[in-house]
Every structure is written in C-alpha cells, then in structure tokens.
C-alpha cells in the first residue's frame, strides 16, 4: 500500500473564484453561452429530426411574436410569470425557500372566483372590485403566513411546508369546482359571468390584457424600490445574508420572516386575481400553470433584481411559446421542444459558473508561482 503513494498532488485543473468581472465581460460570457446553446441545439435538431435548425429557430420566433395576437399573449404570459416571480423574490432574498407560490396563487384565485360567483350579481362594481382585491390578497397572504409562523416560532422546514400547502390548495380547488360546477354536474367551472361580465377586468382601449400588464409593471417598480430603498427590504436582506448579524444588530428575525412572507403571499394572491378576473374568468387546478415553480428560476436567474426579472421571464415565456409552435408546425413530439428549452436554460445557468469562477490548469498555476 505504502509503495503506491502518488507524490504529485497537483490535480490537472482546479477551480478558483474570480474577482468581480467588468459588466461588458460578463455580458459577453452570457451572449456566448446563448450562442453555444443554439449551436448545441442545432446539432441535436439535425441528429434527431433532420430538419434545418434555422427554420426551427425562425419558427420559435414566429410562435412567440409571429402575429399581433401572439405578441399580446406573450406579454400577458410574461406579466403573469413576472408577477409570481416578484412575489417569491423577497422570500428567496431572505433565504426562505417559498416553493408554495403555486398554492398561494391558487388560493388568491379561489377567493377571487368565490367573490365573482356569489357576489358578482349583487354587489355594485365599485364595491365588487375592491372586495375581490382584498379577498385575493388575504387568501394568498394567509397561505404564506402559515408556514412563516411555523418557521419563525418552531423552526420547521419551510420547503416541505410550503410544498405541502400547494397540495392542500389544489385539493381545495378540486372540491370547490366539483361542488360549484358550471354548468352543474360537469365537475368543472366553465367561464363564469360571461353575460354580465361581473368581476371581469375591463379591457383598456380594446386590449384585454392591458390592465394586467399595467398592474404588473407597477408591482415591478414597487418591488424594486421596496428591496433596494426601504428599511424593510434592507432588513430582509440582512436576515437572508446572516441571521446572526441580524440578531446582533437587534433585528427581530421572527417578525421579519412573518412580515416578508405576508408580502410574498399577498402578491401571489394578486397574481391569482389577475389570472382569474383578468385572464381566464374561470378556475382549474392548472390555473397557476406551474408558474409558482418557474418563478423561482426567474428570480434566481435575475439575482433578485426586479428589473432583470423582466428579461428572464421574457426569455422563459418566449422559449415556451416557440416550443409549442415548433411541435405543431413540424409535427414533432412536444417533448422535443422541451429538450431544446432545457438545453438553452442549461447553458444560461451554466454561464453563471464561468462568471463567478475561473478554471486554472496545472501549468498555468505553476506559472503563477514563478
């Protein structure tokens, strides 16, 4: 055994953290990663389908912004994803793993549809809309508050807790749609109040989704200011970076956790309101559509900066819409377009590694020593 010892311990390469890169360099790395992703996608496309990669790419663009209707659909979807992403951001910045946005959105939606179905006919619009807003915010906030209280008081694991709250929300939706099915006995809720449009968001200047988009834009500005310039935002960053420092400086950590999750849940509730009253006018188990999870990626990719989140959510929605289009146009299995999306996202996330670290090979390390 002793004779087998290798004396040279220097590995072939090792990884070292790099200093802050200038902005243009990190931008170049990001652009490079997208180019690399498109090249790898092209190879995969040719190998598995024999199609021309360029026409596939053209189809992606066409699927996302090919027509006016599609472009509006794209903006609407970006707005919805962005709204949920903004909602989860304060929680994640505080290192509170809120993977229960899906459930919080659904609860907001459930509260909205409840008000629309049972009070839509009786309340004046001037009362109805505020009631809907308050109900959705409350429902989302409560769904965020429960795991926060357990975390603050008994240090339960918020990841499991928020995840399980999702299933409860989904089952509540199932129960609600079964009991209040429209039309009766169908087991699901169709489009409600389609004659009176009670509780429907009005279309501004003929654009159905414009109000949603304006609301989300306002929320984006709000969240940016809240995180960067408010005392609350500062406190939650300190708690997220180091609970010890927070305690040392006299921040009430429990209070900050609860307050932040109330905000996070409330904003998810608003997303539910926008999805139900401003988009679908109905509710199903799929109303949130996985946005509660995709939002986490949007938020982290943008490093919790609400302005960057516009770009990251746009990217993800763009790819998703394009993927649907190529699977219909080229008669490809939908999984294939998901593979392409996966490759592109993999490269984009991977580029973060090269922005933060550099790889040093053995000979280059030796040079440094000299």
């Amino acid at each position, binding site marked *: 055994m*002793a004779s087998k010892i290798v004396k040279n311990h220097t590995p072939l390469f090792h990884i070292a953290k790099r200093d802050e890169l200038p902005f243009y360099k990190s931008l170049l790395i990001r652009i490079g990663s997208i180019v690399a992703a498109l090249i790898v996608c092209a190879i995969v496309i040719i190998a598995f389908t024999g199609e021309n990669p360029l026409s596939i790419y053209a189809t992606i663009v066409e699927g996302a912004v090919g027509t006016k209707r599609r472009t509006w659909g794209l903006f609407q979807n970006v707005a919805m994803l962005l709204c949920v992403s903004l909602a989860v951001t304060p929680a994640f910045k505080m290192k509170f793993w809120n993977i229960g946005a899906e459930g919080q959105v659904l609860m907001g939606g459930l509260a909205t549809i409840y008000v629309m179905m049972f009070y839509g006919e009786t309340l004046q619009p001037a009362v109805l809309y505020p009631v809907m807003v308050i109900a959705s915010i409350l429902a989302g906030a409560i769904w965020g508050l429960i795991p926060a209280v357990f975390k603050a008081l008994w240090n339960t694991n918020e990841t499991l807790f928020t995840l399980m709250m999702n299933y409860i929300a989904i089952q509540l939706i199932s129960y609600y749609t079964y009991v209040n099915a429209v039309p009766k006995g169908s087991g699901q809720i169709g489009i409600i109040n389609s004659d009176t449009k009670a509780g429907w968001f009005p279309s501004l200047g003929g654009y159905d989704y414009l109000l949603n988009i304006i609301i989300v834009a306002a929320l984006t500005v709000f969240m940016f200011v809240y995180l960067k310039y408010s005392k609350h935002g500062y406190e939650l960053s*300190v708690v997220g970076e*180091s609970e*010890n*420092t927070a305690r*040392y400086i006299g921040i*009430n950590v429990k209070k900050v956790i609860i307050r932040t999750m109330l905000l996070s849940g409330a904003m998810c509730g608003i997303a539910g309101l926008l999805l139900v009253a401003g988009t679908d006018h109905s509710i199903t188990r799929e109303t949130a559509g996985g946005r509660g999870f995709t939002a986490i990626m949007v938020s982290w990719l943008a490093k919790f900066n609400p302005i960057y989140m516009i770009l990251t959510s746009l990217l993800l929605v763009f790819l998703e819409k394009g993927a649907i289009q190529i699977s219909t146009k080229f008669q490809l299995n939908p999984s294939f377009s998901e593979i392409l999306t996966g490759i592109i996202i993999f490269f984009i996330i991977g580029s973060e590694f090269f922005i933060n670290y550099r790889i040093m090979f053995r000979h280059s390390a030796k040079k440094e020593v000299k």
Partner: protein
Amino acid sequence: MTNNTAIELRNLTKTFGKVVANKNISLSVNKGEILSVLGENGSGKTTLMNMIAGIYFPDEGQIFVDGKEVSITSPKHAYDLKIGMIHQHFKLVDIFNAVENIVLGIDEGSYNLKAATAKIKETCDKYGFEIDFSKKIYEMSVSEKQTVEIVKVLYRGADILILDEPTAVLTPQEIDKLFNVLRKMRDDGKAIIIITHKLYEVLEISDRIAVLRKGEYIGTVNTADANESMLTEMMVGEKISLNIQRSEPVNPTERLTVKNVNCYNRDGAKILDNISFSAYSGEILGIAGISGSGQRELLEAIAGLQKIHDGDIVYNNPKTGKSDNLRDKTPMQIRELGVRLSFVPEDRLGMGLVGNMDITDNMMLRSYRKGHSMFLKRKEPKDLAEKIIKDLQVVTPDTKTPVRRLSGGNVQKVLVGREIASSPTVLMAAYPVRGLDINSSYTIYNLLNGQKEKGVAVIFVGEDLDVLIELCDRILVISGGKVTGILDGRTAKKEEIGLLMTKKTNGDGGER
C-alpha cells in the same frame, strides 16, 4: 530504542496562506506510551495531528511509522498504517447504533453484524469499555459517543491513537473512566497521543509531554520531571516587549457591573458560573482565558444576545446618572434605554458585518433605523464609510466593494470603525486582532486606547498574553466559565495568568 518508536515526525512544516501553523516540528512516540501535546490555542496542536491522520498534507518534513518513511495521503491511508484519530467533534451517524457505526466504511465484502458485534465485545472486555449495543447514537451521552469513536478506531486495528481534546466534554467521573481505559491500552503496547491544555490532566495521564507554542516545537519533558509552573512557562514563553502605549486611567467610575451571572448552553451545561466584575470608564479591562471558557457567552450576555439564567448586568448611565439592569433585554431594548454599547464580535463577517453587502450598507447596520421614514438614507452611512476608509487607511477600491472582498485587517478596520463611530460608552471587542498583521494590530490597539482616553469603558478579550499585559489596565482571567482572578495589568506576570487560565475549577475538577 528505535524499533520501539511507533511514529516519528521530522521537521514538519505546514502553512495556510501566510500563516505558519507548524514550523519544523520533530517529535516521536514510543509503543506503550502516552504522549501529551500541550499548547495554547493556535499553537498548532490540531494541525500537527491532522497531518498524522492524513487530513492535511505537510508542506515539508517527513513522517516515519515503524521506522519506515511514509507519506500519508488520506484518512483511509492513515488507517492502513494503523493510525486512528478521535476528533473533538464526533463523526458518527446519529440514527445508527454502535456496531453499525463501527463497521461503516470497512471494506470486507458484506457486513456481518453478528461477527462484528462479537469482535467488538471482545475489544470492549479487553480494555474495559462499556457500550450499550441496543442504543442508537442519538440516544447516547457524549461520553458514550466518545467510547464508540475509540472502539471504532481500535476495531480498524489502530496501534497509534490520537485523541483531540478528549476531556473537554466529559464529567470528572467520565474522565477517570477514560484515563483507565487509556492506561490499559498503553499497557497493551499502543502508542497514544492526547491533545489537551489542562495541565493537571497532562500530569496525571501522560508519560511524556511535548509542548508547542505559536506553531513551534518548544521541547519534550518526562512527566516525572515536570510541574505546573514549568509547563506554563514553556507554553506561554518569555515576556516579549511590544511597546503598546498605556496611559493612566483618568477618573475611573463604575460603568458596567456584572453580578453573579449564570448561563447555560443548549445542552444544559453551565457556561458562565457565577461571574461578577465591574468595568470602569477610562480603562481597558482585559479578559484572558483558554478559548471556549465562556468569553463569547459573557460578551453576548452583556450585549443582550445570550439568555442569562440568573444574575444582573447593571449599566450606570453617565449622562442621566441612572442605573439600568440590562438583564433579559434584547439588543433593541438596550439601545432604547440610551445605553451606548458597541460590540466587535469574534465572528466578524458572520456576525459583525454582512459579507455580501458593500461598506456603505454595512455602516448602515447600526444607523438605518433612524427617523420615521419608510426609506433608507444612504448619504450619512456613505460619508461615514468614506471617513473610515480615509482615517483608518482601509485598502479598498471604493465604498461599493462588498466587505468580504477586503482582507482580514481591512474588514476589522471597517467593523471597529463603525462601532467606534457611534461614540460608545462601553466598547467590547472579542479577539479584535486575531489574524491581523502587526500594523493593523497596532491600528486597533491605538483605536482602543483612544476610546479609553475618551472615557469609554473598554472590554478587550484577547488570546495573546503579551498584548493583554501591555495594553490592559486590569486583566480578568476566566477558566471553565468562572472568574479565577482579576489582576493589575501593570504588575501581572504571564505565568501567573497562565496558571489562572488553566486552574482547575469546580466545574471540571470535582468530587473524586
């Protein structure tokens, strides 16, 4: 004599960056012998042992096992050479029982737990270990866990055993038991190395004693020829003159009084035992002690971060003349009382500062609450950041640099600068010069002295006795959570402090 040597180290050197942890250390252990490695914190004991156990690889030097030169590349390789280390922090799987933990990771094809149990029982009977095989690790006491660790090492056939501070967590009765087992193992021909800084234990258990100081090997003595004061002198060394200025305290008045404070940690062990002292304005009170003797808990108790079981902490407000009890107050409530208490904690980036935030935002930690606005004002903290960078010569590109990118000395300047900026009446600093180079250290000493001259009550927890003696007006020594003495800094002798630091207290001596 040579064929009796179990392991020999020749000129081992290990550096971490610029810090020399071990320098040219040579020592040897014979079969059937217990060697104590003695030294203060940071003297390089654990680093040295980790090199033998294959965790670190030495930069220079040779290791001989049974007279053959070896280079130990991994803990597994150390086991192959029959070297086993029992770490201070146990490495056991909580939900497994003793046998499962012991056989874990041994490659003998398939596990045969029955045969293993029989073999383990045999080992236990031979040396007098007691293990309850039905218990899982999480149900065991600290001493039982330690037994499992030792048996694990023996089961793997170790002939050279290294124990890193094995008595730190044990009760007196358990220590007696451990020592009996160790003696039996020695009589069986095992070579045992035990790391500790408790002098009386060293004298009780070992055959020879090797002393390290600041990474260097000082010498080895036979226990039969050794006594406490001689070992202390070897450990702390001779007095070095540092030329830190020390002014006479001007008009000292009692600023902070700690009365009979008791504290327990999460496991229910007593960490502060009836501590009483006073801190005066215009003086520097030093706190000396082996690290982990309760210094951190004491400062955190004063700062409102550590729950006190009983006792009082009374602050005499120089402005109002009122006295306030700070006991059971949160840091926020203490501030609201008008107590201007500044605290430079030991863990600079994990507690005093936020590593990922820039200098301005770190300045704001103390002041952001000011005013009723919902929003932050970054103007003042930015001015303060610029002032500190200029006054204390902090090396940084600008105020927007995250503090974790600064070097250790500059991080400390930022932290101390901020704490001083709030013009405190009490300033507590825990190991403020740890890891700092000479120049940065003197900057910090000067800052502390400047505060003292302004009439601040300064409490300085230090590890370097030379510094404590030159800087402090009075030195409080604690050992095992108890105050073992309060000395005058101008007349105190190093050996005297060293003895008080290792003095046996009721907490860990006890009814035998």
